[in-house]
């Protein structure tokens, strides 16, 4: 792999969906065929490029794109093991979600605007994944906020704007806090790239208090998007967005960007030893643990399907924070690998919720009676996702919980197991009754809505849901396979705990 | 008291009267005259503060004042055209009555 290719590859990966987005904007509303073609071509091209880059990373090389941005500060896009994990996840799920979205919005309005910002949003996610230093991360992190705002207000209703406003208030407020933290950090250390194991060890003695405050600021900055407890309230309100948006947004792009940021801060800036030395792990675990329980309890009370899934996301994402907060190789593996598992499972659930809403007009949980007979395949995917969430063995969720528990014991935080058990019970409490309704209850006389729907739409949406559910299952079953996310994360964690 | 002080005090007094009238006058024409009068006072200070009085006054500030006078008249001429047009269109000759004109 010659060096010029290694230089331009990361930029190409990030930019391919941006070009598609601009193309879609230019194409305009009417040319639907061209738009779909552009969408699919860009998604496939990105997947191929990510694949090529993955091979390069496996081959030991580190493709890196560097551009002088500010005096002494560079825009760096680099493909290391961790960024490849998130980049691959995003690329795969983007392709699936595009197929799903095309089917879902067959009769919707303003599709050019939707898909344009949709691809820009993935560009931002890719940028977040590939960022090589905190400044680049911040640039794409903010770009993510800007590109997701139009998606949230897509339907243009009053509720959409209320949700969007809360979303903005939280994210822009957090960005101000994040900016202060970053400026403070750059004030102390100067321009530093992400280096596995952290770069601040030398400063520990001199600036202990300042490092702690900076850590707090950065966690708040990331915490909003990662929906940690006090900062999570925007997530349920942003459910007004159409299903593909809440699927990609709240299962993959926005929420994961926040969690990924937390991983970067803990692992690549502070480094596990410094976190342990400064005792910053414990507060993070406490917040994460509380969020897990808080999210699950609130999910119980939700009657709307998507709201329940939203609160479940709030609690699930905190597993990642929990994992890296506990520290130690095992728990960190559990935390990081949950990045992938939660993504797959949650997107499956959101796809199914979207199908129910779009095809049968079902929005509330008590309308789900007997839907298993009417739509067997969708309900199957929904069940796989739900079981995974609860943490039953064959599906991916189990592996995360197992590693988190083992990791906590290894480090001596036995009480964390209590949280894990409690959350599993709560998950079961809010998912099992739903499954019971779907499969065991008798279907109602007439479904709320039964619009005449083209076969293409049905096959597109259900197909996407099936693919994602299969992947969730496959990741769980073939965890031992060398290319599985689990082994991939074990390799990453090896970098942090030599 | 050499001559310079006389002129400076006169210029200061004229400047003060001009500013007072600018603030008090409600008719724009009066305000434009005030601006022109204040301008003359400033030119006076410019020439007097620059050179020795008994010897030949320094020629450069005089040229500047000449330029200043021509600029002053072009500004006042445009202001008067603007004032007449404003009076024609809105019927008012003062900035105070804020009839809300925008659509």
């Amino acid at each position: 792999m010659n060096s010029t290719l290694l230089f331009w590859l990361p930029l190409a990966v990030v930019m391919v969906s941006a070009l598609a987005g601009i193309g879609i904007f230019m194409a305009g509303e009417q040319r639907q065929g061209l738009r779909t073609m552009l969408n699919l071509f860009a998604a496939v091209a990105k997947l191929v490029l990510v694949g090529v880059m993955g091979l390069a990373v496996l081959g030991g090389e580190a493709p890196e794109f560097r551009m002088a941005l500010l005096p002494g500060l560079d825009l760096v896009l680099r493909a290391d093991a961790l960024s490849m994990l998130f980049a691959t996840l995003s690329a795969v799920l983007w392709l699936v979600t595009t197929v799903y979205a095309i089917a879902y919005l067959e009769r919707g309005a303003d599709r050019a605007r939707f898909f344009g910002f949709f691809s820009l949003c993935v560009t931002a996610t890719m940028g977040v994944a590939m960022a090589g230093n905190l400044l680049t991360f911040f640039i794409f992190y903010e770009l993510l906020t800007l590109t997701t705002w139009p998606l949230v207000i897509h339907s243009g209703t009053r509720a959409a704007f209320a949700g969007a406003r809360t979303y903005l208030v939280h994210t822009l407020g957090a960005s101000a806090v994040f900016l202060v933290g970053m400026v403070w950090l750059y004030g102390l250390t100067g321009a530093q790239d992400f280096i596995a194991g952290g770069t601040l060890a030398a400063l520990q003695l001199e600036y202990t208090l300042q490092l702690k405050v900076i850590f707090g600021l950065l966690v708040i900055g990331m915490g909003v998007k990662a929906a940690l407890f006090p900062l999570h309230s925007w997530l349920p309100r942003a459910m007004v967005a159409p299903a593909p948006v809440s699927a990609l947004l709240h299962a993959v792009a926005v929420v994961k960007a926040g969690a990924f940021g937390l991983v970067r801060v803990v692992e690549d800036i502070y480094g596990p030893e410094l976190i342990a030395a400064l005792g910053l792990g414990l507060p993070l675990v406490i917040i994460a643990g509380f969020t897990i329980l808080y999210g699950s309890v609130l999910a119980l009370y939700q009657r709307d399907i998507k709201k329940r899934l939203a609160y479940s996301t709030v609690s699930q994402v905190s597993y990642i924070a929990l994992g890296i907060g506990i520290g130690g190789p095992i728990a960190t593996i559990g935390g990081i690998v949950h990045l992938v598992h939660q993504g797959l499972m949650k997107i499956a659930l959101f796809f199914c919720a979207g199908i129910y809403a779009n095809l049968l007009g079902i929005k509330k949980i008590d309308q789900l009676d007997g839907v298993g007979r009417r739509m067997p395949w969708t309900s199957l995917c929904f069940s796989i996702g739900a079981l995974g969430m609860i943490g039953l063995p064959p599906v991916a969720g189990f592996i995360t919980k197992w590693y988190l528990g083992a990791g906590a014991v290894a480090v001596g935080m036995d009480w964390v197991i209590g949280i894990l058990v409690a959350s599993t019970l709560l998950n079961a409490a809010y998912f099992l009754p739903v499954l019971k309704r779907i499969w065991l209850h008798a279907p109602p006389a007439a479904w709320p809505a039964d619009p005449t729907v083209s076969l293409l739409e049905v096959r597109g949406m259900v197909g996407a849901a099936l693919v994602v559910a299969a992947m969730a299952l496959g990741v769980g079953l073939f965890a031992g396979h060398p290319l599985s996310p689990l082994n991939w994360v074990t390799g990453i964690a090896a970098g942090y705990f030599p | 008291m050499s001559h310079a002080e006389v002129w400076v005090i006169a210029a200061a007094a004229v400047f003060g009267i001009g500013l007072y009238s600018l603030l008090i006058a409600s008719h724009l024409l009066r305000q434009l005259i005030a601006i022109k009068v204040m301008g003359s006072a400033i030119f006076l200070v410019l020439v007097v503060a620059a050179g020795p009085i008994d010897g030949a006054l320094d020629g450069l500030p005089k040229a500047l004042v000449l330029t200043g006078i021509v600029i002053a008249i072009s500004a006042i001429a445009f202001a008067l055209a603007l004032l007449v047009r404003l009076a024609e269109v809105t019927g008012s000759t003062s900035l105070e009555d804020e009839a809300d004109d925008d659509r």
Partner: protein
Amino acid sequence: MIAEALAGLVFLPLLAACAVAVVPKRAVGVFVWSGLLPLPALLLPLTEAVWREGLVRLAVAGFASPLGIEWRVDALALVVLWLNALIAVFVGLYAARDYPPGSARGGRFWALWLLLTSAMNALLLSADLFNLFVTLELVTLAAIGLLVIDGKPAALRAAMRYLLLALLGSLFYLLGVALIYGQAGTLDLYQAGERLGPGLLPVTALVLMTMGLLVKSAIFPLHGWLPAAHGNAPGPVSAVLSAMVVKVSVYLIWRLWLWLAADWQPAWALPLLGLLGAGAILYGSVLAFLQVRLKMMVAYSTVAQLGYLMLLFPLLGPLGYSAASYHLLSHGLAKAAMFLAVSNILAVMGTDRLDRLAGADRRLPLDTLTLALAGVSILGLPPSGGFVSKWLMLQAAWAIDGWLWLAVILAGGLLAAAYLFRPLAVLCARPATAQAADDGSPPSATGLHWSGVVALLLALGALAAGLAPAPVLALLERGLPPGILP
């Protein structure tokens, strides 16, 4: 070669303006574009020279500075010259739609437009205090002439108020020049700086000149005339007013404080100027949020953004200096794009009142996008030039532990978010009535019309400024004012 470039910058548009005033209507177009388009080309050799030597000097008419007038181009002047050239050409291209060179009103419009461009170039080049007064007057007259070209009553009243205040400002400036000439015996900005010491008189002169210029650049307490003037001006005129005319007097304030008074700056005044800026940011943003009309909102946003330029004084240092100059550049581009987009919306929708613009983005997709992109730069969010200047300013505030300035900059950003996302939300809203009326089939979206593209290009320029600031910042780094140690 450099002398020809400098002469071209001033005399080309000047002679073109004279030609436009003389030739019959059908030939006006040729002279307009031959006066405007070569400007960026003329700047290329100049940029190369400034990059090589850091400073280019030219004694006009061959007489050295105490007697004659001298032209000086350093990094800051070059950056603002580039902004002026870009605005003159791009907003000019936009204006060709509303005021075609062949029309009756077009002749007068383009004569004033060319005079304005030439006057601003002359001002940016000049290093002579009285020559700056003359060019400032020419800029003011040409700008107000453009402001009233449509003859709207509101524009006439705003123009009258602007003219009165501008003339008053010039008087104070002239009094300052009189004092400085009396003390230093020379009118050259840099020579006078060396000859004057931190006595009472030089400081008084500096304060007088600054007061005059503060009125002209509408900084916070003296900003009364700006919203009405920029809000009621025709589209392209409000763009050039906000992006350039107001900035030029702030540029002059910088020249006075950082070059003329480099070594005898009254230290007590720096935080005061900073407070003016902070007041402008907060007051302007709140007022912008309360506006009903889109153009007035953008005008108040100018009042707020000008506050950032005044924050240079408390944050004096290489970081603060390059931050403020970069802000001047990126705000110019972004604000021009925003005003053009707004005037497009005004032209198509017939009104710019927010309560009547619901769902306008369907008919004007391009202009809504421009408004959003320009808003990103005004807000200071990452991929834009605004972010680069905000980032540098935060670091500068950080270096001197300026907690107040840190808070003001962040608050400015958040308030800007408040007043910028509100119109965007309105534009993208789906009014209940329209929903039922056309059930999904959008009204005829005005396709890729020329003026929309020009506005978009300016907005993209503001964003590009965010991605490639390195060369400009390096250039600014080399031309630091004497008052600032690298």
